[in-house]
């Protein structure tokens, strides 16, 4: 056993939490998936390589897999470029109306999936507004110009910057203004400061969001299906079809593992690149970053034009979704709005049903519980994994990424099958049919992203802060609470809000685990909008999307709106204090914010 492991075992708190964590990992991440995989790959006791042979001989599977990887690689570049630009435009450079710009870019936080893609087809699709405008200028143009791989990449780039907006912004807040000033006094250009002073601090977070972007590209679903056409289909639709057929699940699991292993390889490579670097300010008394004026007038104009053009591109699709949610199915399909096409019937249908608010309550409850439990657990686990590097912690870290390795349909089925009989591991109770099982599945699903973001944030905190506190006689828990916690709270709040929003309309997991009396929103939406109903319910899809935007927007406001307000008061009270703990106290107050939603 090496020194790190020995030191780790000295802390009783680490020991207890470690035991609980190991139990959770084994009981809910490892065991149910093993039960599922055994059923899939060893149906009658012997391993079959059928899946590999089938997939290899299928042109369609190979082409789709190639497209998925291509998309992931392209997005890893494009999303980073656009994501870094919007964060710098709103939080680093002094641009006019930066707050308004931020709101426009933040629309990706409250909507996504197939609805986001329809938002873009309302603008650039065959009947879209931009397309009609272009057709007036170039009459010979193909109205279906916005399709194929490039269209998929564009839509997924624009809708994929939410991680940057949340996490890069809080990483940027940790840049020490004094280092920027010092560089300026030494005559460094703005560009050089950005590259050599600011960017290094952002690196761990950039690596972490790159992993998320890559994974998002690999598992792309809605955009390729709607916009990809014949030549650009991806692998996820095939995985979902196969996961739904009992005898084809070996194909689904094989494909998913291929994607999962690729993600883990990227993760390992980036972890290696990150190890050993210094990602925090080196001055003794760091001060808060102030926005930088762009001195070159041409550059200033260019950045302004770009920022506002992007603002329009971001804002128009969600606005059109709201507008079209007040029309009927044929108007949505044709894209032509007349004064007569507006109706309140969709909203009446969704809102007047007496039972219609219950799924909202259930989903908000589940999302709030999950987001809170995951963040409390991971705040601690991420710190331990970042601080103690030994074979045990490395192994546990990889095991915690299991939810990224398998499609949620399969993990959900694994949980049902495993816990529909009494198991000693969970006190000989049956978990299938209880409210807890869905919460457990949600918690497991949200562990990887939470862990990644928190670990990246911990990497940006200098060790000497903790050393200083220890030297001053503070106990371990006290140091954690008063010194470290305030510094990671902005990221913790951001990831919690993101987790909360992403769980609101979950369908793939809830469909197998939901309690009959507590059906979440995702199921209600699917039932109301299923294509095999008597009528075409496209309009209802948009109504639900708008309602979800409202709930998600509210959650974001709890995290950001109120924090911005409290930060303004804090600044007024203590205009000159800028040492990390006091500056972060304002942020710290925001952790208590996401929780009130739990009391709904």
């Amino acid at each position: 056993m090496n020194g790190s492991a020995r030191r780790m075992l000295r802390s009783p708190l680490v020991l207890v939490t470690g035991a609980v964590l190991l139990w959770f990992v084994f009981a809910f991440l490892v065991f149910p998936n093993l039960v599922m995989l055994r059923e899939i790959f060893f149906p009658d006791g012997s391993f079959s390589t059928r899946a590999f042979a089938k997939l290899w001989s299928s042109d369609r599977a190979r082409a789709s897999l190639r497209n998925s990887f291509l998309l992931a690689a392209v997005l890893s570049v494009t999303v980073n470029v656009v994501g870094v630009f919007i964060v710098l435009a709103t939080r680093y450079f002094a641009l006019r109306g930066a707050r308004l710009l931020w709101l426009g870019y933040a629309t990706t936080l409250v909507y996504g999936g197939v609805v986001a893609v329809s938002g873009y087809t309302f603008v650039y699709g065959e009947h879209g507004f931009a397309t009609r405008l272009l057709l007036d200028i170039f009459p010979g143009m193909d109205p279906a110009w916005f399709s194929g791989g490039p269209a998929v990449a564009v839509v997924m780039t624009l809708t994929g910057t939410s991680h940057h907006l949340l996490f890069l912004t809080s990483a940027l807040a940790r840049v020490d203004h004094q280092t920027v000033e010092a560089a300026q006094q030494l005559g460094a250009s703005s560009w050089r400061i950005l590259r050599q002073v600011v960017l290094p601090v952002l690196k761990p977070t950039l690596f972490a969001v790159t992993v998320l972007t890559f994974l998002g590209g690999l598992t792309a679903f809605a955009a390729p299906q709607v916009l990809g056409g014949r030549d650009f289909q991806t692998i996820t639709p095939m995985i979902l079809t196969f996961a739904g057929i009992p005898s084809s699940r070996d194909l689904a699991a094989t494909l998913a593992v291929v994607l999962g292993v690729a993600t883990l390889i990227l993760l390992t490579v980036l972890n290696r690149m990150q190890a050993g670097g210094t990602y925090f300010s080196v001055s003794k008394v760091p001060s808060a970053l102030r926005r930088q004026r762009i001195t070159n007038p041409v550059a200033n104009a260019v950045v302004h034009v770009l920022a506002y053009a992007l603002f329009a591109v971001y804002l128009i699709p969600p606005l059109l979704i709201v507008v079209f949610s007040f029309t009927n199915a044929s108007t949505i399909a044709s894209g032509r709005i007349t004064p007569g096409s507006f109706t309140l019937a969709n909203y009446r249908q969704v809102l007047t049903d007496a039972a219609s608010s219950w799924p909202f309550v259930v989903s908000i409850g589940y999302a709030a519980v999950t987001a809170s439990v995951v963040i409390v657990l991971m705040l601690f686990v991420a710190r331990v994994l970042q601080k103690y590097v030994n074979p045990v912690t490395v192994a546990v870290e990889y095991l915690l990424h299991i939810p990224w390795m398998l499609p949620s349909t399969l993990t959900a089925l694994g949980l049902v099958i495993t816990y529909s009989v009494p198991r000693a591991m969970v006190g000989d109770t049956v978990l299938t049919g209880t409210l807890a099982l869905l919460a457990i599945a949600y918690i497991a699903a949200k562990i990887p992203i939470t862990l990644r973001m928190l670990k990246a944030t911990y990497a940006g905190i200098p060790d000497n802060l903790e050393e200083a506190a220890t030297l001053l006689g503070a106990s371990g828990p006290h140091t954690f609470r008063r010194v470290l916690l305030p510094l990671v709270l902005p990221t913790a709040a951001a990831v919690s809000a993101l987790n909360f929003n992403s769980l609101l309309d979950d369908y793939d997991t809830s469909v197998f685990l939901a309690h009959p009396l507590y059906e979440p929103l995702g199921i209600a939406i699917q039932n109301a909008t299923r294509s095999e109903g008597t009528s075409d319910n496209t309009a209802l899809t948009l109504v639900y999307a708008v309602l979800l935007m409202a709930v998600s927007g509210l959650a974001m406001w709890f995290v950001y709106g109120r924090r911005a307000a409290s930060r303004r008061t804090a600044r007024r009270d203590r205009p000159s204090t800028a040492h990390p703990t006091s500056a972060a106290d304002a942020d710290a107050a925001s952790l208590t914010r996401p929780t009130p939603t739990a009391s709904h």
Partner: protein
Amino acid sequence: MRKTITAAVAVLATGLIATGCTSPSTTATAGTDAPETLVVYSNSVSDGRGDWLKKEADIAGFKLRLVDLGGGDIRNRLLAEKANPIADVTFGLNNVYFESLKKAKVLDAYTPSWAGKVDASAGDEAGKEYWPIVREPVMLVYNKAAYTKPDQAPSDWPDLWTKKQFAKRYEVPSDLGGATTQMVLAGILSRYRDDKGDLGVSQAGWDAVKAYFQDGVPAVPGTDLYAQIAAGKVDAGQMWLAGKATREQQYKVSTEAAHPKTGVPMVVQQVGLVKGTKKSAEAKKFIDWFGSAKVQAAWSKQFQTVPTNKDALAQADPAAVSATDSFTEQAIDWAFVAQHLDQWIEKIELDYLAN
């Protein structure tokens, strides 16, 4: 701040534990006086049908808890919960799905009081594990305006890929999970049954499926067939009977269904008792009530379905009955389809899907 966090965590934890430990079976069996709540899984309770059923059942003295999911999802959930079922009754799935449930030993045999009023061969004739309730044709519909004379329109599925004029003018599914899609494919592949062929289908059959997808226009998720017809993108595609009239109204197009001589696949929805239910007596009473002539006739009038119960037919919605009866039922060996359908879907997904 610390207190707030501690309090919040404590509230959440107790909430989770308190609510998490009550399973529906324990709560339902606790009170023996009140009518037991039956958990019913169904894919046929959307569009207001569930609310209507709950209200009528309530009057008849049943307490229902409906779980409304897609057909494939219901099958998978029932299979996964086999060791400890949550559902008591399931209805709405077609005979192919029910056959696979029966094979997995998820169902219990029960002969309902109305068994003599239905054609038992449309359900599980030998095992008595599932019984037919409603039937509906799966059709090939086309836009009337696209063809000047009716005889220019496609008259059967093979026309689509054998006649040049229909190439790239009809919609093909882009997702094979839907029950209607699977019925269309079963209807096509059944015509080429060959026990020596791959998965029970001759090479000519697979060539037909390949041509069907190659010459078709893949459906766009989120865009209805009738939206594509209204936009002039395609002229034909698949539709179920109840979906035709409402969509014609929504999109202001007039469509006609082909009436092939070989007939069309007739989807028969079934009802079955879930094995291992702790409320077996109540569940059986519910099945007796639900399939009875009175309820089926009322259901038909309300939602334009065609009941299988002969006594209900007389009082059923006449338009739906005559529309359904205008189609010949295609002779399909459902046991053969049930045996192979999953493998067919896998093969098509891997090798033939167009998008």
